[in-house]
């Protein structure tokens, strides 16, 4: 199994604080991998390094055999990594459809003068963009909301729109930062199916940060656990769940303990274990 994403001993230091401490992480093609950990464990910082928003203090990141360190975020996208954000970052003043079209930016060959002169390239690009946007909005179930402003969509739909927008960049790997945060159980269930369809139907590799253990335990191939920036466990969902160090990391904090214990204790009750 070749790794699509290969992260070696990546490290990020803010001032004196080590946010991510020599994490090694590898994702095989067409996998669904979860990164979990208590709040402040460095998960989002880890995503930000992969997507070029932060430059790692040390370590290497390679994707599809290419070095990703030092690339700007937009260059990382061109290489095939897309992402969503924990604190939804849609373009609020644009319509749902337009948000997806922005995601098509790297896929369109239109240049400044094509747009000014409405050349054949502009027309075919616009057409292809609209067709693809239509497919993606159908895929996430937002086709009938296409002309609404993104800011006016309800929360759950905004999360799904973020996924559609990220997919528009035509990624090989998509990083989802808490895709079910703030969703009700039914929306969570739908999103879980959406993530699985992503991999099964389109062959996209998925890495997600997630707090909802029902989601993590049921859809992940493997789970990686971060605590205080350090990787403390990695493996199959079942193994990680029973790892004493992981339980301590959660129980030790109190706040997340009940949630983790409860959800971890009843994984089969959801009835769709991987």
């Amino acid at each position, binding site marked *: 199994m070749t790794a699509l994403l290969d992260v070696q001993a990546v490290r990020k230091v803010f001032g004196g604080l080590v946010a991510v401490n020599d994490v090694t992480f590898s994702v095989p093609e067409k996998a669904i991998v979860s990164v979990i950990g208590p709040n402040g464990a460095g998960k989002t910082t880890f995503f930000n390094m992969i997507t070029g928003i932060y430059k790692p203090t040390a370590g290497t990141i390679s994707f599809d055999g290419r070095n990703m360190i030092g690339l700007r975020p937009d260059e990382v996208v061109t290489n095939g990594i897309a992402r969503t954000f924990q604190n939804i*970052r849609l*373009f609020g003043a*644009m319509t749902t*459809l*337009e948000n997806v*079209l922005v995601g098509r930016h790297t896929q369109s060959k239109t240049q400044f003068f094509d747009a*000014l002169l409405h050349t054949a390239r502009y027309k075919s690009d616009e057409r292809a963009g*609209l067709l693809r*946007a239509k497919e993606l909005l159908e895929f996430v179930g937002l086709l009938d909301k296409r002309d609404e402003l993104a800011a006016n969509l309800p929360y759950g739909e905004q999360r799904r729109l973020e996924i559609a927008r990220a997919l528009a*960049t035509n990624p090989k790997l998509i990083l989802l930062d808490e895709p079910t945060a703030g969703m009700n159980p039914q929306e969570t269930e739908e999103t879980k199916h959406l993530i699985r369809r992503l991999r099964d139907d389109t062959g996209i590799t998925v890495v997600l940060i997630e707090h909802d253990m029902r989601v993590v335990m049921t859809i992940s191939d493997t789970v990686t656990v971060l605590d205080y920036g350090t990787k403390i466990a990695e493996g199959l969902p079942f193994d990680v769940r029973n790892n004493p160090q992981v339980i301590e990391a959660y129980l030790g904090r109190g706040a997340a303990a009940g949630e983790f214990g409860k959800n971890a204790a009843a994984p089969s009750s959801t009835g769709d274990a991987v």
Partner: protein
Amino acid sequence: MSALQDKRSDSSGFVVIYALVSSIVAAIAIGINLGPLRFIPLDGIIPDILKTLIFLAFVSSLLLANSLKTSARAKMIVFLFVLVVAIPVIGVSNTQYLDILVNICIYSALALGLNVVVGFAGLLDLGYAAFFAVGAYLWAIFGSQQANNFTGGGFPLNGNFMFLMIPIAVVVAASFGALLGLPVLKVKGDYLAIITLGLGEVIRVLANNLNRPINITNGSQGVRIAPGSAPLEGFLEWLSGLTGIELFKLELLMYYVVVLLVVGLAVILTTRLDNSKIGRAWVAIREDEIAAQAMGVPLVRTKLIAFATGASFAGAMGVLYAAKFSFVSPESFNFQASISILAMVVLGGLGSIQGVIVGAAIVIILNQMVLTAFSNFLADLRRGGLPLPSQFEPAQYQQLIYGIILIVMMIVRPKGLIPAKRNAAKLENLERGELAQKVGKQ
């Protein structure tokens, strides 16, 4: 706007009739006097304020045609009739109004350019007048004897070269924009405002001081273009002889036609950009830089395109400004000039093409008609014996007006009088095969 969703009743008939009636009323009130078309000269009978109001009612027929629900044909009729027939006929009779319309057009094009930078891309540029200065000085220097100071001679250029200078100014100003933008656009959003403000000052200082060691700009005295060097001068003289209309009126009419064409072109180009990948990338950056970058939009490059595009509009209008006013000096391009254009964009609606044109029209009319009329009115009262202090001179307090516009708009209506609508990208375009024709509708 899609006809499918528009539930308003059709106003085509009303708009056409309104345009016709208001033109005739305006023509009578302003007193057109063109040989066979001789209306009763009502000069001195109708007070200036009333004339101004009638004129405004007449010009607003364009706004009505564009904002009410009308058929495409009715829109076309109103626009063609008002812009091509009524304005030239009335304007030649009373050049004061035509002059204001020319200024509205010049500032509309400038506002459309600044709208690309501030409205679409969200980059607050407070030194926009610098690019305006670049274009204006280009023509002022080469269209007068000024250029002889640093070349072998042979200047001024013939007035017709102005038409060549417009595309040159577009390229030069865009290059200036890109050159200045390259270091500056990496800087965080709110610092950009201060830096562009500084750059605006730098250009003004340069214009003031580049008269030594070689006299390029003639310093603070400015550059004057000799009379009789307007473009198409020969043709206009011939036309003047033919029609009996004074030459200066025909010159003004010629500028009207040129700036109108430029504004039309500017509207088409900005609409096209707005509805393309580039316009969407601009708005995405305005809304959220990090998310835009995470969608593959290269920040600096995209901002640079916005900066250069905005600058190119200002460059083109600078040439026309220099030609029309025959005089250019550093003080025409100070901070206040940049702010006046910003006020137009903010008033009309950031990112709204129709809005910024309306904004430009309102600010110019306010400055050149309302404030002056108000000043004259107060002067009359004073002469009538009312003890008003002479400091009540509204025409001198334009900055006060700009300031109030900016504050009030931000508090009450931050999206402007005519907010931008982002609904040009529609899946229906696919089915209707309208991709090629989606132009000029905002």
